[in-house]
């Protein structure tokens, strides 16, 4: 119908290397996006640090986002004493956001987090971080507290302890990773769908009627994806904060 030919999934997410194909230092678009995201995150931390009486430029952005992360994420999710972990949560937030936002930047048009490697790494890093926080605040008793929540009848621990163990140490990093990955991949595929539809309908006699709709949807989807890339960074940051807060104090 309409000569519509949908590109294969490999074409959408697998990019050829710019150089050094096949070797371990092969460098493709995803690597470039990740490097740029790291540089931008580091830039926020370095240039946002310059003290000035009247903040301007990057400093303004850094102050606004730190204020937002402190009031909107850490105070809500951890409460008092959570400010200590602001650097980690802020780094995660900015890195995920910059990786996502390349989805709508022309000539990139690919979210860096739509490949499983980056989100999985972030998820595992968060697991290591909150286990370390738990060990620091509660000592080795952290693992006991994590697996044996209080207020459960003794016999039920046979059932509860394995479930708690799995959900804390396996499902948490996996669900963090899958949530980010699937959201970004779904958004990428949506944008591609409407772009392909618009391109295929272009120049047909019917196109005058249909193209405005599919093109309008494409523009709307791009706006929606800007929102999603912010929202996913926010959700990742808030979940990391909740897990860190849960590791700081045992349940009671």
């Amino acid at each position, binding site marked *: 119908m309409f000569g519509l030919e949908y590109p*294969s*999934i490999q074409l959408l997410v697998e990019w050829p290397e710019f150089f050094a194909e096949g070797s371990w230092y092969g460098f493709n678009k995803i690597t470039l996006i990740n490097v740029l995201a790291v540089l931008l995150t580091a830039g926020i931390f370095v240039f946002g640090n310059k003290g000035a009486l009247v903040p301007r430029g990057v400093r303004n952005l850094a102050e606004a986002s730190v204020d937002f992360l402190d*009031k*909107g*994420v850490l105070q*809500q*999710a951890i409460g008092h004493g959570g400010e200590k972990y602001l650097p980690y949560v802020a780094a995660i937030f900015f890195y995920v956001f910059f990786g996502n936002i390349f989805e709508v930047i022309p000539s990139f048009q690919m979210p860096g987090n739509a490949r499983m490697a980056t989100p999985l790494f972030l998820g595992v890093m968060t697991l290591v971080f909150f286990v370390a926080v738990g060990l620091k605040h509660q000592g080795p008793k952290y693992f006991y507290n994590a697996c044996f929540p209080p207020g459960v009848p003794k016999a039920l621990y046979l059932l509860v302890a394995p479930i708690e163990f799995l959900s804390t140490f396996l499902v948490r990093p996996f*669900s963090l990773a*899958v*949530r980010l*990955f*699937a*959201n970004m*991949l*779904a958004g990428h595929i949506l944008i591609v769908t409407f772009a392909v539809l618009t391109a295929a309908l272009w120049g047909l006699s019917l196109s005058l009627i249909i193209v405005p709709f599919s093109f309008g949807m494409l523009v709307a989807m791009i706006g929606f994806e800007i929102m999603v890339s912010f*929202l996913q960074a*926010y*959700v990742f940051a*808030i*979940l990391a904060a*909740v897990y860190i807060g849960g590791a700081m104090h045992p349940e009671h």
Partner: protein
Amino acid sequence: MSVLPTLATIAQEAGEAGLTAAELKNNSAATGAGLAYGLAAIGPGIGIGYLVGQSVQAMARQPEAAGTVRTTMFLGIAFTEALALIGFVVFILLKFA
């Protein structure tokens, strides 16, 4: 005649229609993928709708608690949505892997 055709009858019909085994596999993978995502979207759809509705009600009744409610709402959405997203991953795996 049974309501659900058995695998054998599907294979027989496919053979009569001139489909090869690979095509048959592709077709059933596409059907399964569509079903997997469609069914996985039902529960989270209901869940997120209910969750956001209740949150809006809470915020309207108690505007001073809007910040806490919003944070908790996003947390709840994140957990509920995970099921739909796992369905989407299953879709990708069935269709393309």
